[in-house]
């Protein structure tokens, strides 16, 4: 049984002695709850609508349907590794050394493609500052000039809502020098991802190419490249379209 206690008039809390008998209670202290609740509710409603709807115009919504900053999980899948030697020794003797280089080269290439195509905080703003240090000094300027092909582009944020479902294969050839040390590698890559455009259509983003890399102080960096983009329209895929959680292969 619920007991209802009705308080009639007078202060709810004991008044301080000083106030008692000297001041009448102020009428403003007895504002009806609606005066506080209604504006607060409207502010809250506005805030919620803002957060929901902002996503639809290129902002970062908090609910499904709006873009978020999650970077799709991605790793290139190594399909082949080949040591190439300049001595008379059998290349197969250097399989493990080449495999180790392939892992390092793949790290560079995964970072490059993640920064260039998958990280929403890059392509929304059209800035790819973390891509260029993966090119050595000799090739960096050319790479930046070719930024439209090597990345999703400066104004990709105006076109895409999402980029997901990345897939990538990589084959690595490793050249060993006369001292049988890895001196150069060629990464032969094929990358694709699904772009969900703001108009509701889909684009398959495709980049194929070969990158020549050399070892340096900060890992293997690109010093020559030949890359082709062949993006094309595609039909809505089955499953969660352009889902950032699309599995890499």
């Amino acid at each position, binding site marked *: 049984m619920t007991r209802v206690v009705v308080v009639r008039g007078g202060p709810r809390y004991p008044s301080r002695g000083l106030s008692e008998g000297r001041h009448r209670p102020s009428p403003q202290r007895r504002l009806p709850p609606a005066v506080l609740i209604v504006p607060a509710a409207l502010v809250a409603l506005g805030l919620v609508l803002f957060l929901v709807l902002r996503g639809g115009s290129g902002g970062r919504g908090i609910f499904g349907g709006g873009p978020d900053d999650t970077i799709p999980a991605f790793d290139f899948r190594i399909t082949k590794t080949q040591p190439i030697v300049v001595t008379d020794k059998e290349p197969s003797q250097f399989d493990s050394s080449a495999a180790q280089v392939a892992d390092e080269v793949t790290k560079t290439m995964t970072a490059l493609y993640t920064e260039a195509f998958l990280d929403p905080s890059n392509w929304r703003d059209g800035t790819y500052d973390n891509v260029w240090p993966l090119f050595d000094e000799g090739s960096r300027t050319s790479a930046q000039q070719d930024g439209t092909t090597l990345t999703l*582009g400066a104004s990709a944020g105006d076109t895409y809502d999402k980029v997901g479902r990345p897939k990538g294969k990589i084959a690595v050839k490793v050249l060993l020098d006369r001292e049988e040390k890895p001196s150069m590698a060629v990464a032969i890559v094929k990358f694709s991802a699904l772009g969900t455009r703001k108009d509701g259509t889909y684009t398959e983003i495709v980049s194929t190419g070969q990158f020549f890399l050399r070892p340096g102080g900060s890992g293997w960096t690109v010093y020559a490249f030949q890359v082709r983009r062949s993006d094309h329209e595609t039909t809505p895929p089955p499953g969660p379209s352009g889902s950032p959680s699309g599995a890499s292969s």
Partner: protein
Amino acid sequence: MRRRTVLAAVALAAWIAGSTLGISAPGGTPRASAQPFLEIGQAHAGFAPTLDGSRPIFILFIGSGARPGEDVEHSLADSIHIVSINPAKHRSAILGIPRDSWVDIPGHGSSKINSSMVYGGPQLLVQTIESLTGIHLDYWVLTTFWGFTTMLNNIGGLTVDVPFAMHDSYSGSDFEPGVQVLKGPDALAFARDRHSLPEGDFGRSEDGGRLIVAALQQFRKEYSKDPSRLLTWVAAGLRNVQTNVPFDQVLELAFTALSVNPKYVENVVAPGTTGMVGGSSVVNLTSQAQTIFHDMAGDGLIAKKNLPPSPNASLLGG
């Protein structure tokens, strides 16, 4: 008073909510569409490091006449070609020097140029040619009969447009004219045949240059289809030659060579007349040869007016 406060609060809340909705509603002012952006379609990006184009590069290609077991670096030079690359103009020239050319060999008096390597290895041959031509040779590359054969087999053979019929039992050449893929032994026979040619060693030297041009053509073609083939070529070369080209420069040279259009490669042989010295047949290089040396030393190229006639002109119909 209470009513006004309520109204003010409601108005404030409405203004905040309205303003917020107003700037965030779909269909609001869109961001300006900036370029560049790859719309659906094809695009290509490429970069290859090349050597500094401020001056030509000169490389001496030597074919050692050593037989298996002999000292490769101190045998007679069987073929001698200066190959220049002008990186700025993307052009090149090949100058064959007849192996019997009678020249001054520093520290050894006058002799056939091919004996220079016997006296002092590739280094003395370089010195001799620099002294003869005034051309500063940046690098030398030395191969052998078997190295040459293996090298060409390693790249899968060389596509050569054989310009005329060649049948010679000495070298083993047996070709009808036309484009054909020469495996190592056939390419060697093509390079060594002088008996099928009216001008003998002069014509043979030109055919050596022809193989270099064919190699450049094929290298570029293979690279354009599959850039990683560069590694195969570099490795095939380095496995079968001796050279003073530093390893990292080999790669840059390879990239630089890719920038040269084979159509703009002049392939000539230093002109000379044959004579006898002490019972040996020798070649006396003419003044036109000196003109060519001087011309080539400048920018690595040979002006049209200085191009000598082909020693195989009669076979070529020219």
